[in-house]
C-alpha cells in the first residue's frame, strides 16, 4: 500500500514538474525577447559576450564537471576558433561562415590529438599536458606574427550571413542567444544520455566505472574532444563579435579564468556555465562603473575561496536547492 501511495504521488508530482519546467522555459524565452527592448546596445553586446563565454563554459562543464578532467588549454581551443575566423577574414578574405567549418575541423583535429594523452594519463599529469599545449599555442600566437599579428593581435570583421549583418548588436544578440540556448540544450541532452552516465561514472569512480564496463579512457577522450569543439566554436563567434583579438585572451590565465567561472556557477550543471560567464563579463564591468576596478581582482580571489568553502557545488545548484526547499515548505503548509 505504501508503494502504491508513493507511485501515485510521484505520478502527480511528475505532472506539475513538467508544467513547472515549461513555465521556466516560457519565462526564459520572454526574457530573451524582452532584453533587446530594455537594454542599451552596449549591454546587449555584453550579453552577447556572455553567451559566447557560456558556450565555451559548457565545454568545460562537459569536460571538468561531467567527466572530472581538468584542462588548462580550454582558452587555447577558444583561441584556435578565434584565430581561424580572424586570419581567414584578414589574410584570405574568407567570409565568416566559411571559416566556421574550418575552425570546427581544426579544433576537432587538435582536440583529438591532445586528447590522445588522456588515453594514457589522467588527473594532474593530463592537466600538465594541456597546460603545455596551451603554452605552445600562446607562444606560437605571439611568435608567428605575420599570421597572427603577434602581441597586437588582429582585427576581425563582424559576421555577416546572407545579408544579415551581425555587427548590429540586436542581430548579434539574437544569434548568440539562439546558439547559446542550442548549446545549453545540447549539453543537457549530453548529460542525460548514456554517454553522460558514462562520463559521470568515470568522474566518480574510475574503478567502479571500469568494472561495470564503461570504457573509461575512451569516455575521457571523447569528452575532451567535445569540450574542445564547444570552446572552438565559441572562439570563432568571439572574434567576430568583439572585433579584435590578441594572444592575451587565450593564455593560461584565460583558461584559469574560465575554470574559475564555471566553478563559481556550478561545474555539474550547464546553467552554471551561464552564471560563470555572466560573472566573467559583468562583474568587472560593474566594478569599472563604480570606479573601483582595482578591487575586482581581490574580490575575485576572495570570492573564489569563499565559494569553494561555503558552496562547493557552485551557485546554481545551491540556489536550485534553496528554491526547491522553499517550494517544499510552502507545499507542506497548503
Amino acid at each position, binding site marked *: 500500500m505504501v508503494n502504491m501511495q508513493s507511485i501515485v504521488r510521484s505520478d502527480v508530482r511528475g505532472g506539475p514538474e513538467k508544467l513547472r519546467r515549461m513555465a521556466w522555459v516560457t519565462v526564459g524565452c520572454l526574457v530573451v525577447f524582452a532584453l533587446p527592448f530594455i537594454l542599451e546596445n552596449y549591454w546587449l553586446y555584453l550579453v552577447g559576450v556572455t553567451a559566447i563565454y557560456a558556450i565555451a563554459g559548457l565545454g568545460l562543464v562537459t569536460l571538468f564537471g561531467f567527466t572530472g578532467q581538468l584542462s588548462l588549454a580550454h582558452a587555447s581551443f577558444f583561441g584556435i576558433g578565434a584565430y581561424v575566423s580572424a586570419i581567414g577574414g584578414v589574410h584570405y578574405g574568407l567570409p565568416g561562415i566559411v571559416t566556421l567549418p574550418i575552425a570546427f575541423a581544426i579544433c576537432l583535429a587538435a582536440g583529438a590529438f591532445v586528447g590522445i594523452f588522456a588515453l594514457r594519463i589522467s588527473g594532474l599529469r593530463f592537466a600538465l599536458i594541456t*597546460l603545455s599545449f596551451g603554452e605552445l599555442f600562446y607562444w606560437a600566437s605571439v611568435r608567428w606574427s605575420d599570421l597572427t599579428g603577434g602581441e597586437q593581435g588582429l582585427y576581425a570583421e563582424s559576421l555577416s550571413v546572407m545579408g544579415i549583418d551581425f555587427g548590429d548588436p540586436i542581430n548579434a544578440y539574437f544569434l548568440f542567444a539562439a546558439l547559446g540556448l542550442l548549446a545549453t540544450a545540447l549539453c543537457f541532452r549530453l548529460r542525460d544520455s548514456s554517454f553522460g552516465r558514462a562520463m559521470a561514472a568515470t568522474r566518480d569512480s574510475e574503478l567502479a566505472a571500469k568494472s561495470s564496463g564503461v570504457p573509461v579512457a575512451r569516455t575521457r577522450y571523447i569528452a575532451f574532444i567535445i569540450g574542445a569543439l564547444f570552446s572552438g566554436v565559441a572562439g570563432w563567434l568571439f572574434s567576430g563579435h568583439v572585433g579584435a583579438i590578441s594572444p592575451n585572451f587565450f593564455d593560461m590565465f584565460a583558461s584559469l579564468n574560465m575554470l574559475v567561472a564555471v566553478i563559481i556557477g556550478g561545474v555539474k550543471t550547464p546553467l552554471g556555465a551561464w552564471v560563470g560567464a555572466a560573472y566573467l563579463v559583468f562583474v568587472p564591468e560593474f566594478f569599472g562603473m563604480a570606479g573601483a576596478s582595482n578591487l575586482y581582482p581581490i574580490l575575485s*580571489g576572495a570570492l573564489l*575561496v569563499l565559494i569553494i568553502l561555503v558552496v562547493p557545488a557552485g551557485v546554481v545548484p545551491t540556489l536550485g536547492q534553496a528554491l526547491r526547499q522553499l517550494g517544499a515548505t510552502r507545499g507542506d503548509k497548503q
Partner: protein
Amino acid sequence: MTLDTALQLTIGGLVSGSLYGLVLIGILLIYRVSRVVNFAHGQIGMVAAMCAFFLARHFGVPIAVALGLGLTVAALVSYLVDILVISRVTKIGPGFDLIATLGVMMFLTAIVELVASPKSFKFFSLGAQIEFTVLGVYFNANDLAVIVTLAVVLGLLALVLNKTGLGLSIRAVAINPEIARTTGINVQAVRAIVWAAAGAIAGVAAILIASKVTLNAFYMTPFLVKAFVAGIVGGLDRFVRPMAIAVGLGLLESWVVYWLGADARIPAVFLLIIVLLGVLPSKYLQDLEQRP
C-alpha cells in the same frame, strides 16, 4: 664550443635549476602532509620579497632584518592559508583544492598590486656585484649563494626528516594522518609547522629570484610553473626524482637558449613535457600510492 662555454652554460643552468628546486621543495612538503597542490606557493614567497623590499626601502630597516621579517611574514601567510582555507576545503572533486589555492594566489597578487602599485622594482642585488672568474668561468656571489642555499635547505630538511622526532611525526602524518593521530601525534601542529616552513622556504626562493629579475606582483609565475612541471612529471609524492627534474629543466633551458636562442626556451620545455608524458613507460608515471 669551448670547455669554458660548456661550463658556463652548466653553471647558469644549475643556478636556475636550483631556483626551481627551491620553489619545488615547499610544494612537495605541503603535498606530503596535506595532499594539496598549492598554487599560491609562489605568491607566498613573493609576499616575503615585497615585505623585505618595502621595509628596507621605505622604513629604513637594515636589509638582513628586513629579509628575516619577510620570511616570517611568508611563514605566517602560509600557515594562515592552511588554517583558513585548505583545511576547510571539502573535496568534492578532483582539482578543487587546486582551485582554492588558485583563489588564494589571485587574492595575494591583487593585494600586493594594490599596496605596492603595479610597478616593477629593482630588488637588492644580494652579492651579484661580487664577481670572480675561475678556470675561465664567470661567477658571482649571488649565483653561488643560490646553489649553496639549495644544498643547505636540502641538507637541513634531510636532517630534520630523518633524524628528529619532529621528522618522524611529519613522515607519519604524510603516510596516514588518521593513524598518526591515534598514536598521539598532534596532526594539526605538524601540519602548521610544515606549512610555515614551506612558506619560509618559498620566501627564501622568492628573495633569491627577486635579486635576479625585476620585482613585481607576477615575477614568480614562470618559476612556479617550472617547479610544478618538475613536481607533476616527477611525482608529487616523491622527492629525489622531481628535484632532479627541476635541476634538469634549468640545465635544459640554459643549453637550449645557447643553441637555439632565447625564443626557443618555452617550446623546448613544454615539448619535452609532452614527449616525456607521451612516451615514458607507464610504470614511471605511476604515483607511489597508486602502486599495488
